[in-house]
């Protein structure tokens, strides 16, 4: 495993080149570049339909310096299953260079993963293909114009649950995809955030050394959908982690470890919600209950992650209420 040093990383070739047409300030290409930089072996990428795919492969151009396939929206995991199956087959038959090791990654947004691609993901995880699935979660169908997904946070204003006089944004809490993935008992699953690049890339390296299905859920701010500034992606990633909206943890062979615990810097969720235009209606006096509800969802989720950690780490117990000042 290569040591993650900025100086050395800066000399590595970016495998997703600049000049692609992702929006200024988008979190997704930052995530992709960190992942590709972390891997030393040759990589083959499959990508679900979405922002990442449409903005990086506009024919006759491609931003990908690795073999890449996009086939449809709901099937990145099934598509990479096929690629990996062919690799295993050719290798076994002696039709592929014996010493050559190739890594397989599927990228999907939250729509392509939490919703339409969930079945395909579940199937590929259960079959045990040797691949990594990366969900870059920006919390809505951003590519088609900010429609709600099952990853959209409670209360968020989207174009299919717009905040109006009767409906106050998304009425439901989000689905917990990472836990659904964990229920497949795969060797490795983790959550990461691009502001914590060393944590993210370290997780990628750790995962890639493991044979079998791996999964990472990575928060990827979208300034268009979140209604924020183009230079907010990293700050909002960091706040998502410090508010415990997006806990950083990993699950290795069923053992859960929290990688970062906000203590003194633990921040109430309103600090993350306030800069985002999609939540501005939550700050109306009559919607105060929604802020309280949101905080409750976040705290409940944190407690459940802490419980998993504490159950796995008898010698390293975390107090879920530590740092909470509200």
């Amino acid at each position, binding site marked *: 495993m290569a040591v993650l040093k900025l100086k050395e990383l800066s000399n590595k070739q970016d495998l997703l080149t600049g000049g692609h047409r992702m929006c200024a300030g988008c979190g997704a290409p930052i995530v992709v570049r960190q992942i590709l930089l972390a891997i030393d072996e040759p990589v083959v990428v499959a990508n679900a339909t979405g922002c990442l795919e449409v903005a990086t*492969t506009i*024919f006759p151009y491609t931003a990908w310096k*690795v073999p*890449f396939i996009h086939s449809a929206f709901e099937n990145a995991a099934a598509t*990479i299953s*096929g*690629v990996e*199956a062919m690799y295993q*087959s050719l290798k076994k038959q002696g039709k592929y260079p014996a010493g050559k090791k*190739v890594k397989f990654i599927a990228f999907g947004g939250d729509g392509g993963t939490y919703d339409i691609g969930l079945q395909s993901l579940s199937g590929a995880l259960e079959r045990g293909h040797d691949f990594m699935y990366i969900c870059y979660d920006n919390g809505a169908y951003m590519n088609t114009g900010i429609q709600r997904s099952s990853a959209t946070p409670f209360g968020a204003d989207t174009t299919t649950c717009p905040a109006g006089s009767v409906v106050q944004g998304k009425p439901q809490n989000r689905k917990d995809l990472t836990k659904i993935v964990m229920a497949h008992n795969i060797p490795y699953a983790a959550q990461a955030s691009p502001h914590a690049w060393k944590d993210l890339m370290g997780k990628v390296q750790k995962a890639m050394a493991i044979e079998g299905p791996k999964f990472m859920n990575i928060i990827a701010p979208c300034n268009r959908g979140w209604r924020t500034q183009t230079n907010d992606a990293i700050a909002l990633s960091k706040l998502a982690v410090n508010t415990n909206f997006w806990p950083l943890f990993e699950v290795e062979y069923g053992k859960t470890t929290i990688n970062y615990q906000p203590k003194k810097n633990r921040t109430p969720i309103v600090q993350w919600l306030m800069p985002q235009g999609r939540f501005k209606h939550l700050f109306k006096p009559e919607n105060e209950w929604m802020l309280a509800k949101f905080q409750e969802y976040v705290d409940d989720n944190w407690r459940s992650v802490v419980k998993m950690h504490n159950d796995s780490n008898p010698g390293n117990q975390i107090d879920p209420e530590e740092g909470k000042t509200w």
Partner: protein
Amino acid sequence: MPKKVAMTGNVAVANAMRQINPDVCAAYPITPSTEIMQQFATFVSNGKVDTNLVTVESEHSAMSACIGACAAGGRVMNATSANGLALMWEMLYIAAGNRLPIVLSCVNRALSAPINIHGDHSDSMGARDAGWIQLYAENAQEAYDNTIQAVRIGEHFDVRLPVMSCMDGFIISHSIENIEVLDDDQVRKFVGDYRSPSPVLLDTDHPATYGPLDLQDYYMEHKKAEHEAIKGAKKVVLEVGKEYGKLSGRTYGLFETYKLKDAEVALVVLNSAAGTTKVIVDELRKKGVKAGLLKPRLFRPFPYAEYAAALKNCSAICVMDRADSFGAAGGPLFSEFRSALYDAPSRPLMINKIYGLGGRDLGLNDIRKVYAELIKSAESGKIGKLYEYITVRQ
């Protein structure tokens, strides 16, 4: 040496697949095609093939995995029916658009609703515009032979398109016939090694992007290329059919004619019902009626000039459709043949019968009646109904 073996259509296709020894297959069960992949799985489990069998969780994922595997750089096969094919629909177009020569055995079955597991052609007929080459088979022998030829046709560098090899559900898939099976070596030599004209995904030294976003400036050129490729496939189908004839003694063309040359009345019949029709043709010929039959083999691409030339001298023909194209001016096969004959210097009177939906039997007497109607039309110069359902309660 080739040998005669008794097997069902499904087992025949599974054996063709064993002999082809594809690198990757996907499997998802659906009646009546289930037995193909089930049989094939026993070959995998017993080391008779090198195939990596991906036991997916849906037909959509089956075709998606086939697309990934084929783009990765190897030979890929799969089988399905009816609703399974319908669930693959999106991916059928994507396989063709990415020019991936996947071979799919389609065991024809009626589409829901109402749910019905028996044979008709509504599944593959619905997929006719997906960009796949479509071959149809009258019996297990043809299904076996087509499966082997499909590999060569699709993978040909002038084609590079997926191929759907069709046979009738239950009537053929589950009936035991004596068929002649080639030696394993003969088949492996005939299909040869998989080759790709362009960099594959596993060629990591030459990174290629498959499935890019293709907008107003290039999409149409790529579709034109696909159009040319499938048009050109006709030539390859003939070449491969001829070469297969040298190997097996069974030469394949675009279609089969049965006593059609001097026929005054003829039926156009796809798949298994063509066998039944031949019995009636013989019966009518004995009575001095100039009856004939055309059994299409290649439906996509549709060799319209050849079909028109074969039928142009008839006085009256009936195109038999085992699928409806709801709201159209006839079944899918009829529309194609009618269009093909439009430019013929002389063209027969034409009618269309929809028969056999959901596995409804087509008996000898039903076919007799159709010929009788044609004879009447040929004499009077007039047709009755342009198209109608037969063998149905009124």
